[in-house]
C-alpha cells in the first residue's frame, strides 16, 4: 500500500481512545453485548497491529454485520427508534474499527464518531455531558490530524495540540453561526426515544403516588421571576387539575370529556399586579406545564385550558422554556356553569361509607360551605393525623375509610383526596390540584429551583362569590410543609431523600458543597436559557436587539464581519508570526564574528561571500589569521554542506562558537 494511504500507529491509538470515549455516555442505554463487541474490536485491532491476528475475512465481516443487526433487533424489538439506531451506530463503529486498514476506513470511522457524538445530545443536554462530548470531538479530531502526520509510529500527544488549537479557533465562528442560523421546525417526523419513562407528576393520582415521587431529588423546573419572588407559602405551582375520580384514582378532564362550549379558558378580569416569570422545564415526556394561579402564557404555542392550567400540544421531550404572567388574586370562575358544577360534584357511588357519613354529619353541623371547609380541616388537626413520607398501603375497596379511621397517616394526596371526597359528598364543588409547592431559592441567580420532592397535591373548593378557593388540607396537618418545605416537615422522621444517599441536596448543611451545588445550578439555568432552550422567539428577540432589524443582508454582513474578525488574526498568526527571521545558531555566531570584525575595521559588504570576506580580513588583520580561517571554515561547513550528520554538525557548531568567543575577548 502507498505510504500515504497507511494509517500511522499514532492515529490508530487515538482512534482506539475515541472508541471507548464514545461509548461511555451511552453505556446505560445500550445492551451489554455492544460493550462486549467494543472490547473485542479493540483487542482484535490491537492484535492485528501487533501482527498476531489477521484482519477479518469478508464472510466473517458479513456474519458480524448480520449478527449485530440481529442483536439490535432482538434487544430492542425493533431497529427503528433512537436507542436502536444509536446501538447500531456504536456497533458499526466498533466493527469498522476491526477492519480499519487504510485511510479511507479511518475517515469513515472518524465521521461516524462525530455522528455518534451528535446522537448523545438527543438524550442529554447536561452541561457536563456537553463538556465530555467536546472532549470526544477533540479525540476524534486528534485522530484525524494524526492520520495526516506520516511516519508517526509512536503515540504522540503533540497531535492533540494542533487539534485543540483548531477547535478553539473554530469555536467563536461556531457561536456566531449558532445564534444566526434560522431555527426552522422539524422537516419530517423522526423516531423518538422509545424507552424513556415519563417523569414527574402523572395524570393519575392514587394515594401513595406523590410520596413516591417525593423520594426524588431531580429538578422538575426552574423559575426566574422578573421582580420579587413571592412568599414561599404562595408558590403553588399548578400543573394538573383533577376533577374526575375513577376506580380509586383521580385524573384531569380530557379534551373529549369537556363539551365544546366549555373548552376555552374564560376571560377573567385580572386583579392586582401581574407576576412575570420564565420557566424552564426538564423533559417529562408529558404535556402539562406548571404555573402559578391564573396565568397567561407570553410564549407562543401554549394552550390554556378551562380549568386554568397551561398545556403544551407536544410532549415535553427537551428542556422547554416558556414565559408566563400570573395574577394570583384573580377569582376563578365567579359563576359555575351547570355542566361544570355537575362535574365537580360527581362521586362514584357506594364506596367509603364511613367517610361519606362523616362528611354529611360535619356539613349538617356547619352554617355555611366555608364553615364546613374549616370544620373538615379542623377534623384533620384534632384527630392526630400524621404527615409522613412513608404512608401505609390502603385497601382497594374503601381507601379513605382506611385512612381516616384506621391508619391516620398520609402524605398530601391522602389529605387532598379525603378532603375533596368529603366536599363533594356534602354538595360543595371541589377538585384536586396536583403540581409542586414551594421551591428552593438559589441566592446565586435568584431562580426558584423546584425539585421532584416539592411535588404536592391540594384542593380547590368553589364557594359562592369567591369562585375557586385554594384549600391545602396538608397545611392543617403539617404547617411546616407549607412554610418551609418537605425537608423540615419530615425532619423528625428522617426520611427526606432517604433513597438517594448521594444527592448533594442531602449535604446542604456542608457549606462548600451547598455553594458548589447552587453555583452549578445557576450555571445550568443560564445554559438552559441560552443554549439548550434557545428557540425561534429568543433568536428573534436577540437579533432584533443586536441588529436592529432581521434581514438576510444584515445576517450576511454580521456573519462575514464576525468571521473576518476571527479568521484574519488566525491567518496572521499562521502566516506572518513565524516569518520573523529566525537565525540558525551558525548564522548567529557568524554575524557576531562579522560585528567583531567591523569593530576592528573590516566591514563585510553585503555581496561578499564568507570566503572572500575571510581573504580580505586576513590580509587586513594577519594577527587573527588562524581564528578567521577556523571560523569561516566551520561556518561554511555548517551552512553549505547538505544535511551533515547531526553529531558532527554539533561539534562543528561548538568549535565555531568557541572560536568566535575567543575573538571577542582579544584586544
Amino acid at each position, binding site marked *: 500500500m502507498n505510504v500515504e494511504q497507511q494509517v500511522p500507529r499514532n492515529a490508530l491509538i487515538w482512534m482506539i481512545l475515541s472508541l471507548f470515549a464514545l461509548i461511555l455516555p451511552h453505556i446505560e442505554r445500550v445492551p451489554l453485548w455492544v460493550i462486549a463487541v467494543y472490547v473485542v474490536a479493540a483487542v482484535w485491532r490491537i492484535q492485528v497491529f501487533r501482527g498476531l491476528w489477521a484482519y477479518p475475512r469478508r464472510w466473517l465481516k458479513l456474519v458480524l454485520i448480520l449478527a449485530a443487526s440481529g442483536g439490535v433487533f432482538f434487544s430492542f424489538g425493533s431497529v427503528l427508534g433512537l436507542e436502536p439506531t444509536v446501538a447500531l451506530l456504536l456497533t458499526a463503529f466498533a466493527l469498522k474499527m476491526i477492519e480499519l486498514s487504510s485511510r479511507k476506513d479511518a475517515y469513515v470511522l472518524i465521521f461516524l464518531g*462525530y*455522528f455518534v457524538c*451528535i446522537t448523545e*445530545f438527543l438524550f442529554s443536554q447536561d452541561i457536563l455531558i456537553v463538556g465530555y462530548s467536546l472532549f470526544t470531538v477533540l479525540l476524534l479530531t486528534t485522530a484525524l490530524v494524526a492520520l495526516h502526520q506520516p511516519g508517526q509510529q509512536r503515540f504522540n500527544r503533540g497531535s492533540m495540540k494542533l*487539534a485543540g488549537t483548531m477547535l478553539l479557533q473554530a*469555536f467563536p465562528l461556531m457561536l456566531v453561526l449558532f445564534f444566526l442560523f434560522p431555527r426552522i*421546525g422539524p422537516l419530517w417526523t423522526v423516531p423518538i426515544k422509545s424507552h424513556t419513562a415519563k417523569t414527574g407528576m402523572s395524570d393519575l393520582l392514587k394515594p401513595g403516588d406523590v410520596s413516591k415521587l417525593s423520594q426524588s431529588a431531580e429538578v422538575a423546573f426552574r423559575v426566574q421571576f422578573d421582580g420579587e419572588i413571592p412568599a414561599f407559602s404562595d408558590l403553588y405551582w399548578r400543573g394538573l387539575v383533577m376533577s374526575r375520580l375513577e376506580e380509586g384514582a383521580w385524573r384531569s378532564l380530557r379534551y373529549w370529556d369537556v363539551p365544546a362550549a366549555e373548552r376555552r379558558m374564560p376571560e377573567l378580569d385580572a386583579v392586582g399586579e401581574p407576576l412575570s416569570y420564565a420557566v424552564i422545564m426538564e423533559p417529562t415526556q408529558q404535556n402539562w406545564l406548571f404555573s402559578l394561579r391564573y396565568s397567561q402564557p407570553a410564549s407562543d404555542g401554549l394552550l390554556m385550558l378551562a380549568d386554568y392550567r397551561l398545556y403544551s400540544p407536544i410532549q415535553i421531550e427537551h428542556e422547554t422554556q416558556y414565559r408566563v404572567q400570573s395574577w394570583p388574586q384573580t377569582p376563578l370562575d365567579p359563576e359555575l356553569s351547570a355542566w361544570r358544577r355537575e362535574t365537580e360534584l360527581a362521586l362514584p357511588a357506594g364506596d367509603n361509607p364511613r367517610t361519606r357519613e362523616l362528611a354529611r354529619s360535619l356539613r349538617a353541623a356547619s352554617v355555611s360551605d366555608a364553615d364546613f371547609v374549616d370544620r373538615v380541616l379542623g377534623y384533620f388537626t384534632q384527630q392526630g393525623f400524621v404527615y409522613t413520607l412513608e404512608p401505609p398501603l390502603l385497601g382497594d375497596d374503601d381507601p379513605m375509610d382506611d385512612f381516616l379511621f384506621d391508619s391516620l397517616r398520609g402524605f398530601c394526596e391522602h389529605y387532598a383526596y379525603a378532603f375533596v371526597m368529603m366536599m363533594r359528598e356534602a354538595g360543595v364543588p371541589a377538585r384536586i390540584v396536583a403540581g409542586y409547592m414551594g421551591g428552593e431559592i438559589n441566592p446565586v441567580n435568584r431562580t426558584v429551583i423546584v425539585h421532584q420532592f416539592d411535588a404536592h397535591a391540594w384542593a380547590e373548593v368553589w364557594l359562592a362569590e369567591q369562585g375557586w378557593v385554594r384549600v391545602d388540607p396538608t397545611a392543617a396537618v403539617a404547617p411546616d410543609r407549607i412554610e418551609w418545605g418537605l425537608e423540615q416537615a419530615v425532619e423528625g422522621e428522617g426520611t427526606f431523600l432517604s433513597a438517594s444517599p448521594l444527592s448533594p441536596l442531602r449535604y446542604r448543611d456542608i457549606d462548600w458543597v451547598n455553594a458548589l451545588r447552587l453555583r452549578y445550578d445557576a450555571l445550568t439555568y443560564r445554559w438552559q436559557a441560552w443554549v439548550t432552550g434557545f428557540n425561534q422567539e429568543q433568536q428573534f428577540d436577540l437579533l432584533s436587539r443586536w441588529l436592529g432589524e432581521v434581514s438576510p443582508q444584515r445576517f450576511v454582513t454580521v456573519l462575514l464581519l464576525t468571521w473576518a474578525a476571527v479568521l484574519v488574526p488566525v491567518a496572521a498568526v499562521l502566516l506572518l508570526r513565524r516569518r520573523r527571521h529566525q537565525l540558525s545558531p551558525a548564522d548567529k555566531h557568524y554575524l557576531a564574528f562579522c560585528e567583531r570584525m567591523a569593530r576592528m575595521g573590516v566591514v563585510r559588504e553585503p555581496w561578499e561571500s564568507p570566503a572572500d570576506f575571510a581573504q580580505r580580513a586576513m590580509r587586513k588583520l594577519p594577527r587573527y589569521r588562524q581564528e578567521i580561517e577556523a571560523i569561516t571554515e566551520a561556518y561554511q561547513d555548517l551552512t553549505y554542506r547538505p544535511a551533515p550528520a547531526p553529531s558532527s554538525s554539533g561539534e562543528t557548531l561548538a568549535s565555531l562558537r568557541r572560536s568566535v568567543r575567543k575573538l571577542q575577548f582579544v584586544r
Partner: protein
Amino acid sequence: MVSGWQTLKTATRTRFRAWLDRRIPPARSVTLDQKRIFIFPSRVGFFFFACLLLMLLTAINYESNLSFGLTFLLTTLFIVAVLHTYANLSGMTVHGVRAQSVFPGQQAEFELLLERGKRRDHYALHVAWENSDDALVNIVEQDTQTVRLHIRAGERGWFNPGRLLIETSYPLGLLRCWTWVALDLNALVYPRPLACPAPAGISASAADGTAVMGEGSDDFYGFRDYRSGDSLRQVYWKGLARGQALQSKQYAAYADRCVWLDWEQFEGVGIEQRLSQLCFWVLELEGGGEEYGLRIPGATVSPGRGEKQRDDALRALALYGQGDTA
C-alpha cells in the same frame, strides 16, 4: 464528436499550461506564495460535507440546539482548516538541485531540495511529476529536505519533466492544497548508442601506442644505467646517495595515437543515427581506456580520456543541433 472533444480537451490543456506558465514562470528556485497555491475541498472534504448535512438534518428534526452547535463547530473547523492547510504549503521553497544525465529510456534522477519557510513546519507534502515516482516529505526536524524523484527520460537533448506537483491535505485531509511548480531543471539525454563497424580512422591508429623516448619530455618513464653524455640534471642523485649505482632518470612522450571521432567518418547515414554511432564509439573508446577527441559541426572536444572527457563528448553529441550549448 470524439475527436472534437479531444481537440477541445487538448486546446484547454494547452491554454491552461500557457496561463500557468505566465502565472508561475519556470525558475531554479520557487517559493510558494498565494500566487502559486491552489486550494479546494478534497474528495474526503465532500464526504465530510455530506456527513455535516446529515448532522444538520438531525439537528433540525430533533430541534436539538446542541446538535446544531456541534454541526456548526465541525463546519467552522473546516473553515479554519482552509487556513491551516494553506499555511502548510505556503512559504516553502523548492530548489531544483541537480538532474542526472541519462541515455534515452533510462530513469533520470532529479534531486530537489525543499526548504522550510522560516521555522514553519510542513507536514505530509506529496511531491511528484506527472510520470515520476512520488515522495512524501515532512520538513519538521530539519530546515531542508532532499527529495530524489525518478522519471523516464525522453529523446536526445534537454529533458524537462514538466510541472512538479506539490500537494498536501494536512492537517485534516478535508482540503487539498497544491501547486504546479515549473522548475528550470533539465536532464541531459544523450543519443542512444548504436553499434556499428569501426570507421576507417579508428582501427588504423588504435594499435599504436608505443612510447617514444626523447629528452625534453615531461613525463617520467623510468631509470636506466648512466651513460656518458646524459645531462647532469637527469642523474638520480638520491639513489646515488643511498649507495646505488649511478642512474639516469628517463623521460618519455607517447606517440600521438589519439583517435579523432569525426562527423565525416560516419557518412551515408542520417543525423540521429550518426550521433548514435558516434555515441557508441565514445563509450567504446572510453571503455578501452583510450584517448580520443570529437569533431562534429559546431563543437569540438579536444582529445583526452576519463569520465570528464566522456561526459564532454556525450554532452556535445546530446546538444548537437539544439542551439543551446549551456
